[in-house]
């Protein structure tokens, strides 16, 4: 199904259009591009992107900040700030919380507008288990698909089989078992679920801590213990063993859900994340452009308190936020998915 999806859409824009368009900027008089070659693309022969390639794509995002944007203007601000990718969606999580109702995949036209406006990779969200939304997002050529708990889940039991897609997937997790289940389904990138749209970093910290602690436990476990652990975590034994050996997740692991300040971003980086997602935190704040730049700088220089102090000065109002401890359990988005 999904594998045929690509051939059904032969004019699917290259998932890597970002650089195809970028290269024009570097052309100069001494170099000329042969027009006939510009349509060349390796994966247009219908073969599946290997997992190594998809995971490798995600690795290029390391040390970067991925920002939620709802329109072209915000996407440009994010790119200008140095975001390594943008997440195109109609409503940021804070608004989804406030407005309620069913949250679905965004209008493809809106996503495509953003894809045309920026050179950085563009991600888009699909509902958990909604394989057709994923097929649509792949067909319009987004660079990554986020199978996200922020949207209303479409399947009460299953997540999407992500191995069937050429487009790499990012998925949320609260613990190691959840992360490894997503990876075995083909996720090329993992992020903490945190608690999106709250501006409260505590849940992201909790999820990262849990993953770290479970990896540490697995690393010192015997093979027999690992088998027990794999049963308890409900994950694949081989993947767990690989994780134990690597002492980290076998794919890139970002922080997400509640990051609102440069200090939050640096905190997550110091906990061992490979990068951060900032959702509502930027465009629900007083001075988005300045805050976006500050969070990018803080993510790069996460170990340098002097730089962190500098970039934290005068950012204006942060997202007002919701305290996660005062939230009802039913209001928590992180509980979606398994």
């Amino acid at each position: 199904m999904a594998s045929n999806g690509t051939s059904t859409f032969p004019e699917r824009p290259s998932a890597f259009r970002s650089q195809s368009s970028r290269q024009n900027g570097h052309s100069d008089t001494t170099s000329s591009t042969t027009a006939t070659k510009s349509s060349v693309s390796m994966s247009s022969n219908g073969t599946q992107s290997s997992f190594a390639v998809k995971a490798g794509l995600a690795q290029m995002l390391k040390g970067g900040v991925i920002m939620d944007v709802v329109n072209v203007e915000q996407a440009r601000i994010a790119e200008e700030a140095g975001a390594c990718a943008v997440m195109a969606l109609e409503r940021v999580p804070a608004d989804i919380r406030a407005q309620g109702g069913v949250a679905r995949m965004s209008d493809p036209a809106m996503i495509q507008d953003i894809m045309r406006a920026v050179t950085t990779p563009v991600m888009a969200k699909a509902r958990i288990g909604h394989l057709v939304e994923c097929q649509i997002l792949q067909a319009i050529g987004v660079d990554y698909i986020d199978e996200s708990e922020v949207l209303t889940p479409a399947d009460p039991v299953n997540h999407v089989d992500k191995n069937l897609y050429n487009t790499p997937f990012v998925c949320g997790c609260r613990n190691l078992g959840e992360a490894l289940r997503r990876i075995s389904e083909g996720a090329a990138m993992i992020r903490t679920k945190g608690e999106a749209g709250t501006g409260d970093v505590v849940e992201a910290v909790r999820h990262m801590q849990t993953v770290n602690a479970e990896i540490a436990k697995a690393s010192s476990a015997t093979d027999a213990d690992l088998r027990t652990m794999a049963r308890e975590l409900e994950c694949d034994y081989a993947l767990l063993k690989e994780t134990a050996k690597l002492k980290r997740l076998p794919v890139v692991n970002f922080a997400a859900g509640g990051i609102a300040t440069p200090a939050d971003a640096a905190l997550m980086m110091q906990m061992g994340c490979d990068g951060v997602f900032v959702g509502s935190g930027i465009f629900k704040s007083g001075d988005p452009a300045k805050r976006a730049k500050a969070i990018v700088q803080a993510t790069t220089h996460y170990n340098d308190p002097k730089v962190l102090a500098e970039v934290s000065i005068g950012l204006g109002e942060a997202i007002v936020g919701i305290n996660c401890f005062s939230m009802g359990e039913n209001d928590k988005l992180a509980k979606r998915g398994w």
Partner: protein
Amino acid sequence: MPGLTVGVLALQGAFVEHIKLLRQAADELQARWVAAAGEEWEASQPRQGGVTDMASRRGGEDSQMPQNEEHQHEHAVGVKLASATVRTPGIGQSGPEVGVKSHPSATADPLLIHITEVRTPYQLSKCAALVLPGGESTSISLIAARTGLLDPLRDFVKVRCRPVWGTCAGLILLAEEAVESFEAELDLGSFLGRGEGSFHSVFIRAPVVEKVLVASKSETSVSQEVEILGRLPGRAKALRDKTVTAEDLGEEGDIVAVKQGNVFGTAFHPELTGDGRIHLWWLNEVVEEFVRKQKAE
């Protein structure tokens, strides 16, 4: 003790992987120098049968060394190494040795190779060589500009002509066109040494160099020739778009590894496959360049 610091630009992207492989390569080189020093010593001794493995060689050093000759021996090794000509590394050489045969340091002291992350101009100023990792080139250049690294970087590459290796994002400046991401087996025998076989490569939004800029943009030095070190063969075969023929692409295939003076570029990501051979080759080049410069001073 002479030290050599190699930096990896750590603003954004896959820099941790580079650091890991470079550290492995540094350990490997240093181990080889120890082994080579042993070999030199063996060679300087009267023939006593071929001792080949390192363990017995070390044993030989420890136990067989006549006491009255010990000082003389050390001195001999030192002198030998100091006068050893720096070999042309790798190219055309066979075997997995990557051309590392002798301790390239100007003195008998082992050269300490230090691999470090670079985020500030100060950190850059400590480096003798630099890796520009793959990542989002837009992000990297924006962050570099904001950190005040752009001018120091330009200075590092073009004025001071320090060795620089760009993977992907770094090579984009030379690139004409971006293809998609894929895996392929590459024959990089031309510089890794024949018999090295293929190198499993991961291309991520790879820029493929279709045409090398004729005029060097270097403001200071005379333009240096561009060596093409690796090509991706048979891409034409994989194309569904039949308007592009093999002849259009050139029978030799697309250029995926180049070297121009101090700048080395790869369109693929050797840091993603855990295969450290290219890192070893490059680090060895850096060390030899470093030693050459030190001797010249």
